[in-house]
């Protein structure tokens, strides 16, 4: 199994522990990730203001992977949906592809329409599989109560992902957590968005959106929240103190990337999984697991 790793703009600056732990678990599970220097922004941040340029950026990244004969594995859900959507449209709509290629030819690129795009967690679920993961668990996470948070763009638009998940009642992340021995906890408004996309537009609304979820997860007595997108991570982990202050609340809820808890279960040293880079302290959680 081999993919081009697309780290995106966000993870290297606000989710380094995600990138780090994803690479470690990939290595452990025999998933080969190829780094390509030529990758740049996926275009998502420009979609609101300039769809045309956004699509060109996405297609350029697809061209880069196509040139190496590789499919793409992203760690950001936003990159996954943006690149997958562009890829799907361009492989069906020949007219659009010609139009885009006309521009790209000026920088020496052209897209044939052959690259598949998946988020890292989907690769774990589909390419590695629950069974293989379960077989490799060294430290069961039994006793932990974990609340999953699916990033919106892991699920939606669902047609972009060929309906691989149910956007209303998603299950893949919960199953991936369960095979590690942990208990998954259900909570209110589970598929609620983190608000990250509008943080720069209206931080009151965005932080209130994130706060609601922290409330719901906390109410169920979860030990931690588990997610898979650097933007969601920044809302619930990096901004948790800000939220606590603004809403006069206290959560202290650890927020881990799935690859971090997977790594713990696979027996990888917590330091190699960047657990010290999480803003909300993970030490209680680790001692609960006997570290």
């Amino acid at each position, binding site marked *: 199994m081999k993919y081009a790793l697309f780290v995106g*703009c966000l993870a*290297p600056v606000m989710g380094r522990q995600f990138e780090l732990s994803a690479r470690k678990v990939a290595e452990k599970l025999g998933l080969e990730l190829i780094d390509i220097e030529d990758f740049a922004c996926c275009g998502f941040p*420009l979609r*609101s203001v300039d*769809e045309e340029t956004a699509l060109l950026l996405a297609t350029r990244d697809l061209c880069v992977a196509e040139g190496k004969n590789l499919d793409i594995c992203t760690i950001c859900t936003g990159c996954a949906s943006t690149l997958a959507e562009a890829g799907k449209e361009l492989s069906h709509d020949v007219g659009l592809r010609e139009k885009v290629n006309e521009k790209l030819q000026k920088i020496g690129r052209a897209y044939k329409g052959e690259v598949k795009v998946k988020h890292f967690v989907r690769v774990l679920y589909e390419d590695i599989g629950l069974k293989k993961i379960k077989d490799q668990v060294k430290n069961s996470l039994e006793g932990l109560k974990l609340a999953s948070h699916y990033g919106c763009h892991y699920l939606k638009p669902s047609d972009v992902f060929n309906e691989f998940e149910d956007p209303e009642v998603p299950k893949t992340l919960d199953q991936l957590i369960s095979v590690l021995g942990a208990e998954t906890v259900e909570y209110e408004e589970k598929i609620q968005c983190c608000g990250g996309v509008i943080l720069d537009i209206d931080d009151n609304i965005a932080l209130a959106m994130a706060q609601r979820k922290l409330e719901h997860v906390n109410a169920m007595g979860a030990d931690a929240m588990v997610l898979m997108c650097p933007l969601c991570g920044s809302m619930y982990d990096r901004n948790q103190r800000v939220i606590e202050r603004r809403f006069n609340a206290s959560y202290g809820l650890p927020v881990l990337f799935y690859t971090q808890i997977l790594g713990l279960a696979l027996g990888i040293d917590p330091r190699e999984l960047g657990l010290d880079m999480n803003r909300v302290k993970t030490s209680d959680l680790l001692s609960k697991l006997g570290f």
Partner: protein
Amino acid sequence: MVATKLDPKFKDEVSKTRGGQNIKRCYQCGTCNVGCPVREIEEKYNPRKIIRMTILGMRERVLSSEFIWLCSACYTCSERCPQDVRIADVMNALKNLAVKEGHVHSSFAKRLEVIEANGRLFPVSQFDNAKRKELGLPQIPPKNEEVQELCKLVGSSKPSNVGGGG
């Protein structure tokens, strides 16, 4: 009632813009309002109404509205809309048109420039790269020449390059 200048062609303009293709199918059922996470917090945000105003032709009101910038692109409504209006994409189409009229939300004004200069939305500093090296992570180049070329190619005439209110 205050008379608002209506532009009956506005809905056609939106339906020809990427993302706006299905806007005319809306039959105002309100499903998009129910379960919109932004509306749960701020009830003045009303996607159904934005679509209604667009179909009615209230071009200036819609394009200068701060509300079109509030969609968090969660696609909840797009999934549930019985008419496949793809509301999140319609919001994008509206924002793209708004930008052409000079209504760029300030937080977006510099995005194209930043991406052009660095190849990415968040530049990776030397400090970041040193830290990456320590952790055994590959270096991230400070710029991407192809992206610069590409942005020059399409960007020079783009209003999203200019700063502005919103």
